[in-house]
């Protein structure tokens, strides 16, 4: 074992859940950076404060993003983490790996960095935690040689992410993986060279269960849905009932629009009232399936609190067919980003800009029609703007 003195962190080696301290110690045995990280963390546990300085600008040739600068505020005690930068490595879409690929990543990171990672970071990248400034370029070169590239950081398009989609899920209404990979490849420049007012996130979920939290966490959310009727296999409905499911109570009564009827023989769905929430389909995957006319709803504006409060994304296109090469969606993304780029203040997310200038102005700028699906209810205040072209129209 590496010679460590970390009585507080040692407490977190106890217990049943896998311990990150074990991983820190494992890396510390072979790597002086990891060893200093472990001891700096112990000091944080003692002092109840972080010991990292405000980042600095570091990077690799040709890119303005993908590397997060990090410096210790106690380099006197922990010289090996004086500079301890993060590299964000764009994950294979859907986080699928072959072990030879993962091993390559491990070998590169053992050669250049601390040997510590996050699998994965919050946005989706594989996070390589901690290396020195003079290793950044050579690490990048080796990553590139092995077929990896960096993800986004700063005021750039962040690494798009997608749910597991049609690779494994019977509910996928769109090919979330193909779309995500296609957008990632199309927008490499926007990811690697920050050119926006602030960050821009795209997350793609192939159904309304939203396994990548796109509605909460992305400026542009793509959520799979369908337009026609839910497919029913009545035999399988009966099998669910026979297996002990209380279809009235668990399915019909919990339907948000009460659009289902069950008479112990047959399940009837009034599809015109269905809002495609996925509850019934989640409960009876063998019996019920999304309809055949599939596509996605497009929403914008989701974000965490900083600066002006958290937002959930808003519907701007109720339904869009999504098939390669995805030109309609790409054209919309580009119109949105152009407007945001033109009008956004520094560090103003898309949702905050729409709040400031108004959805009406946004829709006109990106050329989308107003439709009732965009709102929970029409406005309740009388402070209504009119466009100049609306005036005098009704005068005879």
């Amino acid at each position, binding site marked *: 074992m590496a010679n460590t003195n970390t009585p507080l962190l040692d407490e977190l080696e106890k*217990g049943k859940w896998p311990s990150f301290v074990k991983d820190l110690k494992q890396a510390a045995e072979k790597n002086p950076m990891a060893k200093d990280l472990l001891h700096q963390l112990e000091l944080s*546990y003692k002092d109840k*404060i972080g010991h990292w300085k405000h980042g600095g600008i570091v990077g690799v040739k040709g890119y303005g993003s993908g590397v997060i600068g990090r410096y210790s505020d106690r380099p006197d005690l922990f010289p090996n983490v004086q500079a301890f930068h993060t590299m964000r490595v764009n*994950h294979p879409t859907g986080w699928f790996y072959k*072990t030879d690929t993962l091993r390559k990543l491990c070998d590169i990171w053992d050669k250049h960095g601390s040997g510590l990672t996050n699998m994965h970071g919050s946005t989706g990248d594989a996070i390589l935690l901690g290396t020195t400034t003079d290793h950044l370029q050579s690490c990048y070169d080796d990553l590139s040689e092995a077929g990896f590239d960096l993800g986004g950081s700063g005021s750039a398009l962040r690494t798009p992410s997608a*749910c597991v989609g049609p690779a*494994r899920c*019977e509910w*996928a209404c769109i090919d979330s993986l193909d779309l995500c990979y296609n957008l990632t490849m199309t927008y490499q420049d926007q990811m690697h060279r920050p050119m926006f007012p602030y960050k821009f996130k795209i997350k793609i979920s192939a159904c309304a269960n939203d396994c990548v939290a796109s509605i909460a966490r992305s400026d542009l959310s793509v959520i799979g849905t369908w337009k026609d009727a839910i497919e029913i296999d009545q035999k399988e409905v009966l099998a669910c009932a026979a297996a002990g499911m209380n279809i009235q109570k668990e399915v019909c009564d919990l339907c948000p629009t009460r659009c289902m009827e069950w008479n112990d023989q047959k399940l009837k769905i009034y599809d015109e009232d269905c809002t495609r929430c996925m509850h019934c389909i989640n409960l009876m995957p063998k019996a019920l399936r999304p309809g055949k006319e599939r596509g996605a709803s497009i929403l914008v504006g989701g974000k965490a609190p900083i600066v002006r*409060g958290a937002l959930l994304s808003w519907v701007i296109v109720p339904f869009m067919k999504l098939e390669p090469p995805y030109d309609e969606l790409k054209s919309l993304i580009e119109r949105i980003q152009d407007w945001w780029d033109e009008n956004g203040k520094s560090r103003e997310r898309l949702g905050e800009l729409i709040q400031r200038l108004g959805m009406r102005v946004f829709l006109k700028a990106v050329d989308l029609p107003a439709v009732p699906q965009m709102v929970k209810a029409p406005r309740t205040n009388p402070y209504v703007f009119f466009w100049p072209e609306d005036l005098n129209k009704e005068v005879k």
Partner: protein
Amino acid sequence: MAAKTDIGPPNYKTMLPPVIERNYGNWLYHEILKPGVLMHVSKSGDALYSVRAGSPRLVSTDHIREICDIADRYCNGYLRFTSRHNIEFLLDNRDRVEPLIAELKDRGYPVGGTGHSISNIVHTQGWVHCHTPATDASGPVKALMDEIYDYFVTMKLPNHVRIALACCLNMCGAVHCSDIAILGIHRTVPKTDNARVPNVCEIPSTVASCPTGAIRGDMKNKTLTVNEEKCMYCGNCYTVCPAMPIADPDNDGISIWVGGKVSNARSAPKFSKLAIPFLPNNPPRWPEVVDAVKNIIEVYASHARKHERVGEWIERVGWERFFALTGIPFTDQHIDDFDMATETFRTSAQFKWR
């Protein structure tokens, strides 16, 4: 030779196991065979078995190699990670599922996180690698998962409970729509370092960074002043101006938020709401935080109806009952005073006494 740029990530299509390649887009249904084990069946009759195991997310390269060794032995070298940082071993042979689970158990990997369980806690960097945290991330998560481990390896809750931790309001873990969110907070105003401001900060952008207009430029002295009555300690000024440090070991800590969700199933996605304004940072095991979260889970587990998420249960019984049942004190901090505050005030005579 210069390295190639803009090549993008490895193409996911080269990472898919043959059973997925053959059945891509053709899945018919799935079953949860037992906690941590999914079986997806294709129209072709092929089946894919996914075995889900917990991970601390902060993992060493040797740990990843161990995962690879296991995947080589049981899955022909194919695996994936989930959006909640679990590891999923992908098998096309049912006979290998139990031996794999046995090996995972031997090596200390929890198998679970499916269905009505508590899956892995999505979390941020904390003291391990961030410059703005109000608490650690990996530590409280480990301490809590140790205590609620049983909910990971079973499926006995009314519905799944998504827990997330962010160590400051920047929320790179975006916890704001979780069943239970653990959020690091500051409680004291930033301390302006007047000597450093002129060298490292842009005064107008720092003033503009404040959501409540609490920061003013002092052009004469080339520095910034903070109105203590307006500052709500978000730390955004520190993000743009390193000379306004806000971390305060004696007063930083953790707040607990409940009732959010992102799924559209049944009720619409919703934000988490404040349950506990402050709990102290007590490393290494944050006992106050662990107890508080465990209490909320247990009250939910014993009162919610089947399929109700935490937020759906609370909305059915009412927030007044949530506070009564959990024994959490209600304070003036629970009442919003930011931009859209009045939307949360009660505008009817309809409420419960407890």
